[in-house]
């Protein structure tokens, strides 16, 4: 079957109609395919969510046990005074009391501003996290045990968690006459972190 070139003008309408019909069919196909793809994605997401919810429900007893265990740890933090807001007046009073009780020589301290705790293995926890105030201590000691007892007493005061980071002990040279007298024989310089729990602003 041959169609003369001049006759093609008579086929414009049928060809246009055919093209329109094909385009409509293709459009239907594309739209339905798109809907189907979207629906499949939504179904997969819903299936995953459902599976996760099921898994979480299966692990609810484990989660409860974990919460109980974590709350024990939290109670331990509370018992060490970490949960309460840092009270520097109490801290200073406590240092003074220890000095008096232990009959220590001069104690000089410098407490820095509070900041997030940055130790190895510690990462941001969220709304409630550990923060620390670094305290530099310079003390005159009769014996190195004075330093150890001071640190032990500070920890026992339960005002915060005391984490000793650095200590330097230097011998103070005395003549033979003062070797046995009650004068400082050691000077110490320590850096101690006072760690508490704090609501961190996001």
């Amino acid at each position: 079957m041959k169609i003369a070139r001049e006759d093609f003008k008579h086929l414009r309408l049928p060809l246009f109609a055919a093209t329109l019909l094909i385009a409509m069919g293709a459009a239907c196909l594309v739209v339905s395919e798109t809907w189907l793809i979207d629906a499949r994605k939504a179904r997969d997401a819903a299936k995953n969510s459902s599976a996760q919810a099921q898994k979480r429900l299966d692990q609810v007893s484990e989660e409860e046990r974990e919460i109980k265990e974590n709350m024990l740890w939290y109670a331990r933090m509370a018992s060490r005074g970490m949960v309460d807001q840092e009270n520097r007046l109490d801290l200073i009073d406590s240092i003074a009391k220890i000095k008096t009780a232990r009959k220590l020589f001069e104690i000089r301290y410098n407490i820095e501003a509070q900041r997030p705790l940055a130790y190895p293995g510690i990462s941001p926890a969220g709304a409630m996290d550990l923060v620390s105030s670094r305290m530099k201590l310079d003390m005159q000691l009769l014996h190195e045990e004075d330093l150890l007892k001071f640190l032990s007493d500070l920890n026992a005061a339960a005002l915060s968690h005391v984490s000793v980071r650095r200590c330097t002990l230097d011998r103070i040279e005395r003549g033979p006459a003062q070797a046995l007298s009650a004068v400082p024989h050691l000077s110490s310089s320590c850096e101690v972190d006072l760690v508490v729990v704090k609501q961190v602003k996001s």
Partner: protein
Amino acid sequence: MPAKRLLYFSSTQLTAFAWNAGTLTQDAVFANGEEALPEFGKYVARAPRALYYLLVDIVEEDFHQELIPFVRGGDRRTLLDRKLAQRYRDLSLALTVSLGYETGPRREENILFTSFTNTQQLQPWLTMLSSQKARVVGVYSPPLLAAAVGKRIGFAQKRFLLVSRQQAGMRQSFVDDGQIRFSRLGHIEGEDMAQRALAVAAETGRLQQYLTNMRMLARDGGALDVIVIAPDDALAQFKAACVSTPQINYNVLGIGEACKRAGLKAAPEDLLAERLFLHTLAASQPSQQFADDGHRRYFNLWRARVASYATGAAICTFCVLLAALRLLDYYNVQEQASTDLQQERRLNDQYTRLQAQFQKTPTSTDNLKALVKNYIALEKQSITPDKMFVELSKALAVVPQIELERIEWQIGAEPRRAVDGAQAAKAPPAPAAPAAAKTEEGQIFEIVQLSGRVNAAQASDFRNITLLVNQFVAALRARPGVEVTSTQLPFDLTAEKSIAGDIGAARETEVPRFTIVFNKRVES
């Protein structure tokens, strides 16, 4: 489906019929001449959308068989056109029929060339049809329809001779292997039906002889089947006259019976066998016909329009069906998603109910978990120097000549290897492998740098000083977990440096000093 108009053209007239579902109705009769053309034009104009079939039953018809070389495609078309042009003047009404290939190495093709030898009488009618933009399906002749007629009346043989009587005369059409090979139109002489039947039998015998002589029939090919379409009222005479012989096997059939077998429901009573051909033409519409594309221009246009609409509609329907299937899938998938979401809600509600029974926490469970994890890590790193002082005291007890002047203690992740800014001699090799030769991830160490002096030795007594310091280092190393990383003596014994001293002089006030760096891993 558009109406079908059948135009039966004989040498004397053109008869127009309408055909509808096996019923043939005569519309008009036009005398074969110029004067009838305007009336014919008006007839055609009344049914512009009808399909027109022209059945030409005239004596001026030619059949010629020829072998052509084995060629294909355009070359074959060109060769056939050239052969047709050599044989016929008017190529617009010429036809070639392939009759198969010769067996042999050359594989020549046997072609039947056929046309009307006088097309002048047809052209005015075709021109009128064209001027009225009539959809001419094709121009046919009874021989072209003979094979289809045989099939429709239930004759199964592939080779037969069809003898029929139309208004134009007696037509004999020889069909072999389903294709027309030869046909002739003649008159039957005779005053009554008995004589005419005898004449038909005689003509059939002569034609059988002719076909054999022309080698269209093999001499030992068996009896030739002959179908004789006889008038119903003379069926007995024809059966009596047409007696089968070893060469001819007659099948005499009444025209009424033949039409019934072919499916013709009704036709004008005065029609002869042409009604059978007209009905076969309308019902079968054979592909072989004479008209070229010029005569079929408006039919082809109509077909192209229909094909365009049909193609568009078919593809559209197919796409819509596929889209419907996808929509069905879409609703099924949505149903599944809805079920999953409902299940998730139910599980979440269940979880929330159970969670409400949990111990109250000061913050979210995840935050609490992370906080506790951080606190555990903090506790592991929270140690005081008292244990290290114990280790030092035990080492000093081994070497009482050593007196410490400075202790630097710190917690860190990297065990110090050498004293910063000082030229350090490597510590003597340890008896056991160092505990922290290679630090592990997350390991915490107590790192201590000691500065001390050796009281019992003279400053220039290098050997004794070295010995005492080494004893002290060995005592440190003996403590569990302690690794000495560097030792700095008050002098450098390497050959690259100079060294000076006094031997035998009295003890001077200068005291030899040393530095040792060691670490201990904090147990987690």
